[in-house]
């Protein structure tokens, strides 16, 4: 093997990647943590003032509440619907086409999905024809049209979360369906021989074998939720009490040019995400070992 000169080769092969990650990720991260203790123009040290704002102001508390709502509802539905599809579609002949349909929103941008769903939720007064299909369905069922993106606090936030679920369920389905196929046939057959019902098989054989994968997928969804931005930006821009953490950061940065607060929000986001990802990496390693 080539020896000795490897350090020079190493610089050529690894150097560019090191430069990019250091300049765009490592240095800015450290810098942003520093800026979070400075005032809006990064001139004077202000101690914990920005963090006090982050944890006490009404808008930020609304954003945290919404992120928690996202976290619970989005994670629960993406994972359980993904699991449901993984198991049900394994039993039908049109599996492939059905999976493609459910997976397809993953290819669409959040912005595109935002516009698509804004049209679904479109609201017009009861006396004229509805343009949004959801309100039309409500009318067919005998109800009154609803301002899906305006009714706060639950209807509009849940309406946004549905868009996220629509996009990400396919991702969960793909991973969970690979795990489902990985369950050794003998175990399932053994349960059948013992006379287990479908539900018992699911509860005592399928679910325990898939548990590690389900946890990894759920945690991946949690990380997504914490960073959620585009859907809210396009559909409501945080109006009517739909703010989330990442939107607040963007607004503090661009609309209010308060770099101290924006940095503090980013730092909090970072501190929320790090332990979640470390947890996931640990689990993956345990699984691999």
């Amino acid at each position, binding site marked *: 093997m080539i020896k000795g000169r490897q350090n020079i080769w190493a610089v050529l092969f690894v150097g560019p990647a090191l430069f*990019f990650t250091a300049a765009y990720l490592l240095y*800015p991260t450290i810098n942003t943590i520093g800026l979070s203790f400075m005032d809006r123009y990064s001139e004077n040290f202000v101690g914990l003032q920005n963090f006090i704002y982050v944890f006490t102001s009404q808008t930020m508390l609304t954003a945290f509440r919404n992120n928690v709502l996202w976290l619970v509802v989005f994670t629960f539905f993406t994972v359980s619907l993904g699991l449901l599809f993984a198991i049900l579609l394994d039993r039908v002949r049109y599996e492939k086409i059905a999976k493609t349909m459910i997976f397809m929103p993953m290819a669409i941008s959040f912005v595109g999905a935002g516009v*698509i769903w804004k049209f679904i939720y479109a609201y017009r007064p009861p006396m004229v024809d509805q343009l949004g299909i959801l309100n*039309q369905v409500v009318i067919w069922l005998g109800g009154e049209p609803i301002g899906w993106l305006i009714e706060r606090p639950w209807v509009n936030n849940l309406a946004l979360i549905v868009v996220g679920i629509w996009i990400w369920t396919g991702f969960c389905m793909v991973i969970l369906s690979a795990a489902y196929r990985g369950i050794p046939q003998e175990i399932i057959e053994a349960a059948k021989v013992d006379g287990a019902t479908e539900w018992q098989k699911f509860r005592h054989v399928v679910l325990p074998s898939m548990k590690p994968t389900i946890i990894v997928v759920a945690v991946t969804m949690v990380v997504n939720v914490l960073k959620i931005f585009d859907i809210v930006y396009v559909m409501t821009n945080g109006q009517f009490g739909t703010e989330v953490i990442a939107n607040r950061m963007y607004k503090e940065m661009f609309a209010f040019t308060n770099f101290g607060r924006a940095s503090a929000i980013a730092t909090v986001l970072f501190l929320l995400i790090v332990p979640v990802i470390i947890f996931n990496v640990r689990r993956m390693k345990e699984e691999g070992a």
Partner: protein
Amino acid sequence: MESRNLFMRMLMHAVIIIMVLIWVVPTLGILISSIRPASDVLNTGWWTVFKSPLEVTQFTVENYESIIERAGMGTAFRNSVIIASVGTLLPVTTAAFAAFGFSRLNFWGKRFLFGIIIGLIVVPLQMTFIPVLRVYHQVGLSGTFLGVWLAHTAYGLPFAVFMLHNFFSALPRDLFEAAYIDGASLLSVFFRIALPLSVPALASLIIFQFLWVWNDLLVSLIYLGGTRDVAPLTVRLASLVGSYGQDWHLLTAAAFISIVVPVVVFIGLQKYFVRGILAGSVKS
């Protein structure tokens, strides 16, 4: 017992078909609306076309004409192509070199440096915007394609290096030893052995990165701003939502233009996409 089984199967098919319909209807809605005349779109629901689906004269391409020319979706499409092509090739190439270096070379601080690059996966992009944008303003990179290409390269690297490193490390050692004994240089081992063997992994990564960059809103919003001559489809579409609010005939056409490329790429290359997802999230 038999009839109960049959009932359960029917129920299962019904559940699946309803769910699949829920997943397809939203996209179908914008596709149909985008080819209806403005007066129809703004007065009746798109589902009313199913009353007389064979009447071809009720459809038109004029929404596309006006959105591409007047609303600048044509320019935005060109910009997306420019951003996504280089924004895919540059990070994948950089990552391939780095991953090969980390898996096949011995050098000072290797494990430590590799740990840092991979560890940066945890950094949310929000942590980087303010410092990078400040430097960009000083050196004149904000509002330029070059600025966005470099940013996408850096942001895509940790995951790309991670994925390709896994792949290169799994290639049999003997293969490389044999090549060196035959007198092959490091570069020729990289280009003639490592890269050709990694075509499936590279394909997955390229599709991943391409879809990520094509669909990205935030990075372009931060580094390009809203300027029309450089803004990609996502940024342009998001600002149309603000300015065209209720003009659904235009918004639906614009949305369809922005999703058509990724959807075609996705349907054509789904296999690689799925493989990439599985490699990135389940195995380590």
